[in-house]
């Protein structure tokens, strides 16, 4: 018997593509977000409110992943920014190759902010790097506050937790403080924002986070280029 030591990542091919996407985003000064949550936590609604908040001069583009239907892309296309639906045909996550193929249809010089809405799933998307600058996870108050404990992988890897649908708080038993404590157990110091896309409460903090992170990225890029 011979043991051949291999020591490589099982998803090494995805990682290679993700790194090349990341390099490409940096070259074009694109800030890229990978938005992940359970189905129904409000990813598409958040994107609607986000696109609504941008002026027509902003160079924003959205890739939205689903197992089936173009519904989300239709919802998001109303705001006049480039949107593409990625239909995975049953696959439970987006991978680097899907992003690469979708981007072939766009000129990257026309994009400053690329938002990827992943397939609604808290498990599998956490294993696939898409070349993003940050993963963002959504948790709505109509879910369980123990979700960070049940799905630690995605909460551990996300830079920001958005607690959504806070306008429904009075009607549900969800304890926001418990959810925050659970997220901190899995990811000490994770940034957390509360918002409601229905009332608009908290959206200003989300926009501030977005512009601060984009600013940080641009400063880093300038620093490495000078």
């Amino acid at each position, binding site marked *: 018997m*011979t043991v051949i030591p291999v020591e490589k990542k099982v998803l090494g091919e995805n990682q290679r593509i993700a790194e090349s996407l990341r390099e490409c985003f940096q070259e074009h000064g694109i800030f890229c977000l990978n938005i992940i949550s359970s189905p129904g936590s409000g990813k598409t609604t958040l994107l609607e409110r986000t696109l609504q908040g941008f002026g027509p001069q902003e160079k924003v583009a959205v890739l939205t992943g689903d197992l089936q239907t173009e519904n989300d892309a239709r919802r998001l296309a109303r705001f006049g920014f480039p949107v593409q639906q990625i239909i995975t045909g049953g*696959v*439970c996550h987006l991978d680097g190759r899907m992003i690469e193929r979708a981007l072939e249809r766009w000129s990257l010089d026309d994009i400053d902010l690329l938002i990827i809405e992943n397939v609604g799933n808290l498990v599998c998307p956490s294993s696939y790097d898409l070349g993003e600058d940050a993963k963002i996870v959504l948790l709505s108050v109509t879910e369980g506050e123990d979700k960070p404990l049940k799905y630690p992988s995605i909460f551990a890897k996300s830079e920001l937790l958005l607690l959504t649908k806070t306008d429904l708080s009075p009607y549900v038993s969800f304890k926001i403080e418990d959810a925050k404590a659970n997220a901190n*157990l899995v990811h000490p*110091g994770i940034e957390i924002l509360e918002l409601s896309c229905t009332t608009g409460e908290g959206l200003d903090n989300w926009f501030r986070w977005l512009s601060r992170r984009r600013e940080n990225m641009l400063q880093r890029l300038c620093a490495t280029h000078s």
Partner: protein
Amino acid sequence: MHEIGIASEVIRAGQVEASRRIGARIVRIGIRIGVLSGVDRDALDFAFTALTQGTELSEVDFEIQSCPRRDRCLACKHEFESALYSEPCPKCGSVETILAGGDELDLSYVEVEEP
């Protein structure tokens, strides 16, 4: 349920390694999965069985090694194993820690029988 995709990736990579040796037959493949990898051990096991049943790989043994979560203390830089969730630094007691490991999803070795 992306374990089928992961299992086929492991099998493909194992076959590539074995094919570099003439006549080698795969006996065992070693994989490491971290508690935060998002991969379920039982589902992965099931995927290996499902994919190899009735093929020349049906006798291959898949050794799945679980890796714990690791955290690094931001105050004293000590690195330590935790359970699934973060714990205070056992050395200095600080709760300011950052994730340092536990998301492994690695092919560690391929064991072959050579003629």
